[in-house]
């Protein structure tokens, strides 16, 4: 990195080569005017407002400081009379573009401050006539065209940074204007409400609705936390007035660089929603559990009475103690959540194993988990490469993932890379928005991933395009693989998958020949009975091509919830101890020594199996922390039946969830923004958070509640402080080697492993000392990578005459998981207020459907009612629904069948029919 030195207004500065004069001047403490520039990652200089012009020695013309890089020995005069005079007139001209009313509406804007800064006469050139009231039709963002000075920054935000490409700068000459899509209003357009434009607009012409009122709240304070809504782990700055979040802004986090998506921007109303649990609750004696009950929200509270913490904790613990002491720990189970902190997860699994004395501990990662096959192959249970490395990849293969909806800020990084030359191979039945940017889009029939990837692998092996050295030196199972894929010629796969043989061949060659290629996969791959096989097939393809361990080459299963990675690292699962230590004698001994007690035998039951065991009355007591199986699990009727059968159910959450309706005791918890802790994102970055708001009422942090219950079960001092818990966890989780609370406190975020060479050494050998970002340049933690054989399952319930359609479930951008938080955020609920059943356009017309008329969607397990919409991006015969709507909970319909290896349910395939009402 070379450094150049220059002089700006008499001050000597040195700056990294490529730094703009504007940024260098700001760094030197100079207050240079500017308007259409943003120094954040992804913004390119627009240089159209011309308010930052400066004089540069040796140059005839004034130059825009935002665009001009500092050059060696450059002399800049930002306050020369010529520059000052020109800038003042330019600002005066710009000022004439706002109407008088609009100025009044946005008197605090950056632009109004600039007018005073350059001492401009704001009305010298008159004002634009008022033409229209601000457009308030969009729920979250107000567009005030009369305030727009057409600087183009919002367009750059939308097209260059978030790459949603919805905002247009249309027309020419004086008619140039900001608009959406083909001249639509923001509300009608394809806008995804990331709010980037509102965050950067210097005039207020595009503004968050919460700020665009006559009397915007006066912000008391603002501070940062991490967004709780997905594994990207965006840092977000919450602005607080009167104990409420008024608006959120993207903060400069390691994963988001100031960006947010719609959930991170508008999702924080839930913190002070009236439904928040604020006191412990005990079930009323006259409120029996009835499996036919399907209650929501405040209705649930009618079944309960308030209690003191002591009473509630006693009651909670007593139920568990009695069952444990009479029937053994095996009759108890614990379900955590991937939305808690690392400390919560660690304490919860510790409590389960030491106080509940059960091995049946799991959490919702089970419902999506896409990592176990990676661990099986490499011995490592996290991504080998973070998302941002895609900038170094020539090719990216994405299988069964729709990051534009589910990991939007991660998707913005991916889309930027694609715009700068990375070629995308997209494999997904749904023609998602990323398909527009893909070099090859393979729209396969649902459930045919294995055939497709096997054929791609066969292309590269039969054409000799695979990495023979890599295969020889670092891979096991290649010969078996060759045998397995032999039948999958491109033609065979084409017939199975509905993708042309030529495309299969071209995509395979492109990937194999790339000097660096990355693989992403998500729940479209994992949520099948053959989910592990899907992923194994992806991994085998990538490994055979030698695409790991270099910048831009590696494997990235996109994790789901905000702390999936950390919860798994902490051991919140039935088949591993913390740090993915196998439940073998030697490892058990380690923890028995550390925790001073014996541990339960063997692997326990997984999430869905726990529920099945409850229905079979083998599990009788359940502690649910932050999970909501009564919305999230497949086949909800069966789930409710199981919950109702429990002798003792304790639910600890921030809202009265559908699961809480069956509880004996409900304990109020603090939300992430109300507490300290650490969370680990999909990129292996551990981030520290501190409270922005206090918890409401008597709500407490999860780990303290868990500790109190454990204490009543006879195990005291599970953990004392965040610091001691994290440090204990770091001492037993090999990848956290070298990390401590104090280090995180100082650095705010750290990517693990810090010492790649040592991180896994006490579990297995061979971890190499390669790049921290793209791991395994030399060897895998398990030595050679293993290509596992496949189990060869097909979808369990193919369509038939009675149920002729394939039902696939997923998520919408606005809602997270079961909707308990996002449905309670006003803007998000307004943007996506109801469940829609998406139907292929031709089917829609054939079935005579209308968006005005609700339909019944039926499977062998249940019926729900929903509004149909025509969707040309779906294949014929496929219908799609999101899981987040209690009113039309699609998991009433899904099938309770699991992948044998990952124990993930088949959410993405069952047969269904649509019946017009």
């Amino acid at each position, binding site marked *: 990195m070379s450094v150049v030195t220059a002089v700006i207004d008499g001050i000597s500065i040195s700056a990294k080569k490529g730094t703009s004069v504007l940024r260098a001047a700001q760094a030197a403490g100079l207050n240079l005017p500017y308007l259409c520039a943003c120094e954040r990652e992804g913004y390119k200089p627009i240089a159209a407002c011309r308010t930052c012009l400066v004089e540069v020695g040796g140059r005839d013309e004034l130059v825009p400081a935002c665009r001009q890089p500092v050059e060696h020995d450059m002399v800049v005069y930002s306050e020369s009379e010529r520059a000052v005079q020109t800038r003042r007139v330019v600002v005066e001209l710009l000022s004439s573009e706002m109407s008088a009313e609009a100025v009044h509406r946005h008197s605090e804007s950056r632009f109004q401050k600039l007018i005073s800064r350059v001492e401009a006469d704001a009305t010298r050139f008159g004002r634009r006539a008022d033409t229209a009231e601000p457009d308030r039709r969009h729920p979250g963002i107000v567009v005030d065209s009369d305030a727009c000075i057409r600087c183009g920054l919002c367009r750059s935000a939308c097209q260059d940074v978030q790459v949603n490409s919805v905002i247009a*700068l249309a027309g020419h*000459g004086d008619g140039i204007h900001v608009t959406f899509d083909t001249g639509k209003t923001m509300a009608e357009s394809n806008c995804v409400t990331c709010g980037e434009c509102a965050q950067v607009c210097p005039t207020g012409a595009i503004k968050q609705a919460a700020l665009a009122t006559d009397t915007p709240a006066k912000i008391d304070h603002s501070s940062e936390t991490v967004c709780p809504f997905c594994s990207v782990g965006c840092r977000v700055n919450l602005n607080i007035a009167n104990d409420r979040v008024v608006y959120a802004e993207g903060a400069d986090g390691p994963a988001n660089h100031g960006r947010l998506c719609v959930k991170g921007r508008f999702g924080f109303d839930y913190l002070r929603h009236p439904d928040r649990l604020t006191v412990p609750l005990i079930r009323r004696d006259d409120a029996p559990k009835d499996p036919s009950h399907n209650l929501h*929200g405040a209705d649930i509270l009618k079944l309960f009475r308030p209690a003191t913490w002591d009473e509630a904790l006693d009651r909670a613990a007593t139920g568990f103690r009695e069952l444990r002491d009479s029937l053994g720990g095996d009759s108890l189970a614990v379900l955590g959540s991937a939305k808690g902190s690392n400390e919560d997860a660690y304490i919860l699994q510790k409590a389960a194993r030491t106080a509940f004395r059960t091995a049946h501990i799991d959490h919702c990662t089970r419902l999506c988990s896409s990592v176990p096959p990676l661990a099986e192959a490499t011995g490592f249970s996290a991504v080998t490469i973070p998302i941002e490395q895609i900038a170094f990849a020539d090719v990216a293969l994405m299988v069964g993932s729709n990051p534009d909806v589910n990991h939007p800020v991660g998707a913005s990084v991916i889309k930027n890379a694609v715009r700068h030359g990375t070629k995308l191979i997209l494999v997904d039945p749904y023609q998602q928005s990323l398909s527009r940017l893909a070099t090859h889009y393979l729209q396969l029939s649902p459930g045919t991933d294995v055939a497709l990837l096997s054929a791609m692998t066969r292309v590269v092996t039969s054409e000799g395009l695979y990495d023979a050295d890599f295969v020889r030196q670092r891979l096991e199972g290649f010969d078996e693989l060759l045998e397995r894929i032999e039948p999958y010629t491109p033609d065979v796969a084409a017939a199975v998958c509905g993708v042309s043989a030529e495309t299969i061949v071209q995509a395979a060659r492109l990937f194999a020949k790339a000097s660096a290629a990355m693989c992403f996969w998500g729940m479209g791959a994992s949520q099948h009975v053959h989910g592990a096989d899907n992923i194994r097939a992806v991994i085998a393809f990538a490994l055979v091509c030698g695409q790991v361990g270099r910048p831009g080459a590696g494997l990235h299963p996109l994790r789901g919830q905000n702390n999936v990675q950390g919860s798994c690292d902490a051991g919140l699962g039935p088949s591993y101890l913390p740090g993915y230590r196998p439940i073998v004698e030697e490892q058990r001994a380690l923890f028995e020594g550390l925790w001073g007690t014996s541990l339960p035998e063997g692997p326990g039951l997984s999430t869905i199996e726990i529920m099945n065991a409850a229905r079979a009355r083998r599990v009788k007591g359940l502690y649910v922390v932050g999970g909501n199986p009564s919305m999230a699990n497949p086949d909800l009727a069966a789930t409710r039946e199981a919950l109702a059968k429990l002798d003792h159910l304790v639910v600890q959450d921030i809202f009265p969830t559908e699961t809480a309706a069956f509880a004996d005791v409900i304990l109020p918890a603090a939300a992430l923004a109300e507490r300290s802790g650490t969370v680990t994102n999909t990129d292996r970055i551990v981030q520290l958070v501190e409270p922005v708001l206090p918890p409401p009422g008597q709500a407490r942090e999860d780990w303290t509640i868990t500790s109190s219950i454990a204490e009543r079960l006879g195990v005291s001092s599970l953990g004392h402080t965040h610091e001691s818990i994290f440090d204990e966890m770091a001492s037993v989780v090999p990848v956290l080697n070298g990390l401590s609370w104090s280090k995180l406190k100082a650095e705010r975020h750290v990517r693990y492993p810090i010492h790649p060479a040592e991180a896994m050494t006490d579990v297995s050998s061979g971890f190499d000392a390669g790049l921290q970002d793209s791991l395994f340049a030399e060897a895998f933690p398990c030595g050679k990578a293993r290509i596992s054989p496949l189990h060869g399952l097909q979808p369990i319930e193919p369509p038939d005459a009675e149920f002729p359609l394939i039902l696939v479930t997923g998520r919408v951008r606005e809602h997270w998981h079961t909707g308990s938080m996002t*449905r309670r955020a006003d803007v998000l609920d307004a943007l996506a207020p109801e469940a829609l059943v998406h139907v292929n356009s031709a089917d829609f017309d054939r079935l005579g459907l209308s968006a005005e008329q609700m339909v019944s969607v039926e499977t062998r397990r249940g019926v729900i009612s929903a509004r149909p*919409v025509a969707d040309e991006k779906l294949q014929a015969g496929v219908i799609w629904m999101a899981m987040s709507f209690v009113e039309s909970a699609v998991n009433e319909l899904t099938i309770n069948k699991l992948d044998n290896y990952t124990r993930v349910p088949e959410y993405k395939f069952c047969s269904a029919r649509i019946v017009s009402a």
Partner: protein
Amino acid sequence: MATKHNRPAPKRQPQPTPAEIITVEEAVARLGTSRDALLETLLNIRDAHGGVSEAALLYVARLLRLSPAEAYEVATASPAVNYEVTSRRQAGDVCCDSVVCVMLRGTDSGDHAFCKGHCRIAATSQPRSFDAFRKAGGYTTVEQLLMFPASREEILDRVANSRIVGRAGVGYPVYQKWQNLMAAGGDPVVIVNANEGEIATFKDRTILESDPHAVLEAALVAALITGARTIFFYLKDDYSHLHPVLLNAIDAVARAAIAPDICIHLRRSGGAYICGEETALISSLEGYPARPRERPPFPTDHGYMGRPTLVHNVETFYRLRAAWGARMEPDIAVSGLLDPTATLFSVSGRVRRPGPVLVSGMQQPLATLLDAAGGLEDGHELGGMVIGGSAGTIIRSHQCFVRLADLIANGLRLGTGSVIVFGANDDKRWIAAQMASFLARENCGQCSPCRIGSQMSARALADGQLDGLDDLASAMSEASICGLGKSAGRFLAGVLPLLRENH
């Protein structure tokens, strides 16, 4: 937890008509599906259907894998596309509203006889055919370069010695531009700029109507010398009569395999003055709105798709041929341009026979142009002339009788050589306001000093509010991104003293 919100179900996209689909599929089959095919595809739809509907635009966007907004920006930044205007547009239907037209027909006469780029002038001649051009020795230099690549140095020397300068208005030395281009290396591109967007200018049109192959020959020679294998011919959309002429000419060159490794693409402009500014032109070829890009980098370093790009005006290419020995031919009037002292004026306004006038040397006064143009219109006395187009210079009647060489020595710039004659009864301030409003209408709109400044100056000139505009003029020329805004500022600065004198 029932929702209190109600959101209308998403609407289905409008679907294109079968006829629109056929047009688009045909265009895409020829032009491909990368972004650079966008504008020409839209113009193909416009040709067939009179305009581009939203449904057709969305259909094209999907095929070219652009977002609706990306396609919409180009459609609306290019007046030629007739976005959502479906009444068939015909050459001659549209009046350019330039100062000439309005002066002659009044502001609201509805008389569309005077129109952009045509200025009442019918096509002057039949274009010389490929065969005739070959017979006259055309394309031999191309063949020579292909057969004896060593002759490249010699021709390059001759170009250097000819000292020819660009004819688009600024007069940048051609050889220097070529040097810059060749120093950049890479895979260069040659562009023939036939946008001719300046008001009342029709010299390039005159050349192309008469001798299109001469321009192609020069472009091919430039390509062979600089190592370019791609040539774009960027034609003003209003010159629709030239479109088939050039298609035929390019086709003939291809069929005769004159330079088989060089591909010549004909593209039409977006229909605005700014489309001819070279960086805007390049943006438009790439499938972006025609909005200029800041320099540096210059196109010769970083132009079309980041490749080194050579842009010359039609006339520049035409004149270049003198460097490799092309001679004047009595039956090809424009070949007079091979005389380096010759100037091709476009004379219009209050004259009887507006048209191109070729003048040799600078010794005559501009008034001699009047005779060539059939004299002043009946009932008018000479008031003065506008020289050099929309941001040009207004000269008074007595200056029309001064030797041109002396005017130039005193700072007059001929620009593109357009001469608008006005009468003693025509108000200079009104003319100046018309010129300013052309600039206000035809700029790209991206940078504030030009977009707003040109509006403000047009308004001030129209209202006669001439005070306190000096710093506006200077801010426009100091702060604008491209030549349009800068020259608009210079025009304002220059015209203010003239108008104040009048007051």
